[in-house]
């Protein structure tokens, strides 16, 4: 038994190091997957879409876009300034949402968009959106936030109504530190 002791110890150290490396590898998967999603464009929820060049406005067709707003465990009042708009595919559209922090302290939130029908998401190009970054609202602050979008004329003919729905989530643990992340122009309204 003692004849093996040194060999055993050496192997023990190596295997323990392997286990620790694999623990780190688990965490390394996080940036790795993010990179893959970025390169392949699988998950670009938080990035502006590029405006299609020389988009033809399809004047022959009307699409109704409805706006919806939700907050998830967040003391904010959040609503669209318009319930719905009628637009032509290809047309550049500006709308706005209003948000107010009803609490006596600053809170950071992140809006996550979703679409109904889900299929419409890939034809909905947002050029500017408050959902591209976290929003920090001071105590009692009210803000008007723009969304600029184009509906891709390739939208299937059977889709006549699209619902754009946002849900604001509180960014836990970042109540005060997110001010530096605000997009230019979003903090002065």
């Amino acid at each position: 038994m003692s004849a093996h002791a040194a060999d055993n110890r050496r192997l023990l150290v190596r295997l323990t190091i392997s286990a620790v490396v694999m623990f780190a590898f688990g965490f390394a998967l996080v940036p790795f997957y993010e990179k893959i999603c970025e390169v392949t464009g699988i998950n670009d929820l938080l990035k502006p879409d590029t405006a299609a060049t020389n988009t033809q406005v399809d004047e022959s067709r009307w699409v109704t876009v409805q706006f919806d707003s939700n907050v998830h465990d967040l003391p904010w009042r959040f609503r669209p300034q318009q319930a719905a708009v009628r637009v032509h595919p290809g047309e550049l559209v500006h709308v706005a949402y209003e948000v107010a922090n009803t609490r006596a302290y600053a809170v950071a939130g992140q809006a996550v968009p979703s679409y109904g029908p889900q299929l419409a998401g890939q034809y909905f190009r947002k050029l500017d959106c408050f959902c591209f970054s976290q929003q920090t609202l001071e105590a009692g602050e009210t803000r008007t936030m723009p969304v600029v979008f184009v509906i891709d004329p390739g939208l299937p003919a059977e889709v006549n109504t699209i619902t754009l729905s946002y849900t604001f989530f509180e960014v836990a643990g970042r109540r005060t530190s997110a001010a530096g992340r605000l997009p230019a122009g979003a903090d002065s309204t």
Partner: protein
Amino acid sequence: MSAVIPDHLHDHHHPAPGGLMRWITTTNHKDIGTMYLVFSFIMFLSGGVMALTIRAELFQPGLQVVQPEFFNQLTTMHGLVMVFGAIMPAFVGFANWQIPLMIGASDMAFARMNNWSFWLLPPAAMLLIGSFFVPGGATAAGWTLYAPLSVQMGMGMDLAIFAVHIMGISSIMGAINIVVTILNMRAPGMTMMKMPLFCWTWLITAYLLIAVMPVLAGAVTMILTDRHFGTSFFNAAGGGDPVMFQHIFWFFGHPEVYIMILPAFGIVSQIIPAFARKPLFGYASMVYATASIAILSFVVWAHHMFTTGMPVAGQLFFMYATMLIAVPTGVKVFNWVATMWRGALSFEPPMLWATGFIFVFTMGGFTGLICAIAPIDIQVQDTYYVVAHFHYVLVAGSLFALFAGAYYWLPKWTGVMPSETLGRLHFWCSIVFFNITFFPMHFLGLAGMPRRIPDYALQFADFNAMASVGAFGFGLSQLIFIAVAVRCARGIGQRATARPWDGAEGLEWTVPSPAPHHTFETAPVLR
């Protein structure tokens, strides 16, 4: 079993503590193996009670026995307890008992660490089971602990995370011990390619454990920091991605299913030649097949995620890679059948279980192949078809092999032959009730019954009633094994000779039955 071994304590030079302290302080691989096996059987019964509560609720449509919240806790905890509490420790128990005996070593390489790896388990089990009683109850996120549910659950989730951490550390320590023992402690002349196949499969399993248990520990640590420390690994609102949890989890999860089946392959590969009275057909190909299964297991994880919106190229890659695993698995099944071919077969309980294993496990393997086909998987994802599939490979696979191994080595462990009548009864009840329970689930799944839901549409009622009857039959059949094990431990029954199975080969059969407390203090000499 405790009644048998102390007789042999006294012929050794240092007095061992008696009673409970003996079990707490022991560094003997046989004692620790026994404790692992007893612990895993207790966990098996607790997980079984949860399963039966689930089946009682599903006996009829509507809600009768439990509330939906508690039902979700039961499905989650049944999975966690069976995977981490029953199947994995049971195989470690076999490894502790058998590997030193099979390779002619006096004990495991790190005997003290071996004691720690076992004694980490009871506290982890208490955390897990105790989480039923905290406010909000146990975690109900499913055994896969998917975010975002697991980020939102109550404190039962934290207890489950800590339990997974502790059991992970225990598994890693056990795995390191096994690798070092097998690589460094073999008797002179026991070359790698002369090693019993059980040792080979465990060596490869141990490497898998060292590679993936830390990744699971990392994943649950990320959930913990998301829950309490404001990180956003899986929290979409903070820029994280819940789907990423699935990627990290299944990077662990798929190798994990081989961690639970490769040692089973090893046990069956020991038993089939013994009762066919022929050497194992294709020993080297068995080793290579085991290694290929282990390597391939790292590149197939996303077959659990075909419905998460993966690009088609990704689906095709993971589909073909998964189907490729059928090749080495098929090699194994054909080798077992070829070993039996023209053998002098006899069907004592170990062989009954091993043959039953091949038959039912292969069915589970085939449904796995069906699930691997992306377009079909999208249909059967999260239905009872998947439940049927993984119970065919985990119950009829791992569990049946564990029972095969227990009947095979009980004479060596206790010095008493397990009752043949009870063993046969246990096997036939188990295989019949197992199929009554799980075969109808294929139909339920194909008809669209979702898993993890306490209620179901009326057209599923007949098959569910059938499955519930089968489940209670299966659960009660397992009590037969308690009778078998207790009789052996008490010394009731026919005495076992050193080599009670006339076709059995290997060093473990050269020591007396029951195996003395200390064996191979001087290494045996191999031809």
